[in-house]
């Protein structure tokens, strides 16, 4: 389905900039018209002003998508010059965005399947989008959905109330034990037991690898969303590749960023 979606260079207007955390803001953007449908896990390339250090667009995963209303939201983590500029956008500012790019999360075959979402850091953005599409899409998911978030400390846990409000079971792990289980997400019983038919994960690479390993050991399919560095975002430059099991390079920006962990040779 993604392959047939026509991508476009869309002019958005910022309608809201809401700070969620000292390092994260949520930008809500409005297009003049309706948008092509997009899937959680797909991403955009946002143009930022050229500076001494940056020249390329900034790839950011879609956080919320309301295509019919022409509205999307992006979760911006302030890491570099481009994301700092983005996090300081205000209502009324214009953004030039290539939308929608890549291949997103695949829905489970059954609407009854119990699902586990495991996120950390800005990996929360596409997973929250997935949860929203699962719960509020045209065919709402009827099965159990558990959402496990990992963070350094309680104050770094994002969107916990919103996750619960969408009807998912919200679980947390913090490295300092200030909320949820103490330790990395892999210590959490909800992941350890892995009583699910599908796992979705997005976050730091070591976290995703660990989550995929647990899922694999339990023979539960796991989709991971990679964040490789890229230039074009549309499959032309081939900078963002990741090896699969046969050592073939897969293009993260078109074949991914979401992959079945099984096929990857990372």
């Amino acid at each position: 389905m993604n392959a047939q979606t026509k991508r476009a260079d869309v002019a958005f207007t910022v309608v809201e900039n809401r700070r969620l955390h000292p390092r994260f803001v949520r930008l809500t953007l409005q297009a003049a018209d309706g948008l092509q449908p997009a899937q959680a896990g797909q991403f955009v390339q946002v143009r930022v002003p050229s500076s001494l250090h940056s020249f390329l667009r900034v790839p950011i995963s879609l956080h919320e998508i309301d295509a019919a209303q022409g509205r999307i939201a992006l979760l911006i983590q302030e890491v570099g010059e481009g994301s700092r500029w983005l996090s300081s956008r205000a209502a009324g500012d214009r953004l030039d965005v290539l939308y929608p790019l890549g291949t997103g999360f695949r829905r489970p075959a059954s609407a009854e399947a119990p699902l586990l979402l495991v996120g950390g850091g800005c990996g929360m953005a596409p997973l929250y989008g997935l949860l929203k599409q699962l719960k509020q899409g045209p065919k709402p998911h009827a099965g159990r959905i558990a959402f496990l978030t990992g963070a350094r400390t309680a104050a770094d846990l994002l969107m916990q109330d919103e996750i619960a409000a969408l009807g998912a079971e919200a679980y947390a792990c913090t490295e300092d034990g200030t909320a949820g289980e103490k330790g990395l997400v892999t210590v959490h019983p909800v992941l350890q037991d892995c009583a699910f038919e599908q796992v979705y994960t997005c976050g730091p690479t070591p976290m995703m690898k660990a989550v995929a390993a647990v899922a694999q050991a339990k023979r539960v399919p796991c989709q991971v969303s990679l964040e490789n560095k890229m230039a074009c975002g549309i499959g032309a430059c081939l900078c963002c590749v990741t090896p699969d099991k046969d050592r073939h390079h897969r293009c993260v920006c078109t074949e991914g960023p979401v992959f079945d962990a099984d096929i990857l040779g990372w």
Partner: protein
Amino acid sequence: MTTLKLQTDIGRLTLKNPVMTASGTFGYGLEYADFCHLNALGGMVLKGTTLHPREGNPYPRMAETPAGMLNAVGLQNKGVKTLIKDLLPPLQAHLSEAEAADKTGMPTRILVNLSGSTVEDYVEAAELLDAAEAVSGVELNISCPNVKQGGMAFGTRPDTAAEVVSAVRKAYRGPLLVKLSPNVTDIAEMARAVEGAGADGVALINTLLGMEVDIEKAKPVLSTVTGGLSGPCVRPVALRMVWQVAKAVKIPVVGMGGIVDARDAIAFLMVGASAVEVGTANFEDPASAEKIAAGIAAYMERKGIADVRSLIGVI
């Protein structure tokens, strides 16, 4: 508005306008079709292609640098046979559909950037391209800095450059451009060597060899340590080299290196380029080549210049 003549010639190859896209930055063309009117381009040079498919270098292959980027893709490509069989037909179909509505009545030219590890590989692939009707020309890549064998090794010595060019010349009858490496002491000497070996034109510059370090990890950013630098940061170097080469050879020159707008492109024409290629700018704005072609026309109109060829080599 008077009718502007945007047509330009690279020897035997006539382009509807002087703007092409550079290999490695435009995939196999159709990747850009959602964002850019491909038929608005004079031509496109497709992804560096080798006789056999290549997986390229390990990730990380890219580093952002001031006003540009380093890449170390290492010629990942699907091989010339897949190119001819599976990738050219849909591109050609897309272009002919678009061309039906194009008032210039001229096609957008498809050129293939051809690379290899041995002279034999270059020749075998060139023979296949010779038989491919969709291909209007070959840009011989003897300047890729990211492969261990071949690539730039051919393009940094006049004798080896001449050897591969004359071998390919015998195998490929169509317009043959040779893409030159800037990583040489005397680029004019390299241009003269490939001219003598039968090239119809030269294209320059390929990327400049560079590197970047991640000081947190105390490691090079690229898996290959070094890579090719491109983007606006290389433009003055490229412009100087195009100017030097245009003075040194009689065959046409295609100029590239850091072009992001019509102003940059016109500067290359003025120092002697008969056409230009837009590369890294495609990553920042996928419609940049189309916008540059329109920008050249707007400049000509503003200056009262009827024929784009009158801009070529005025400096």
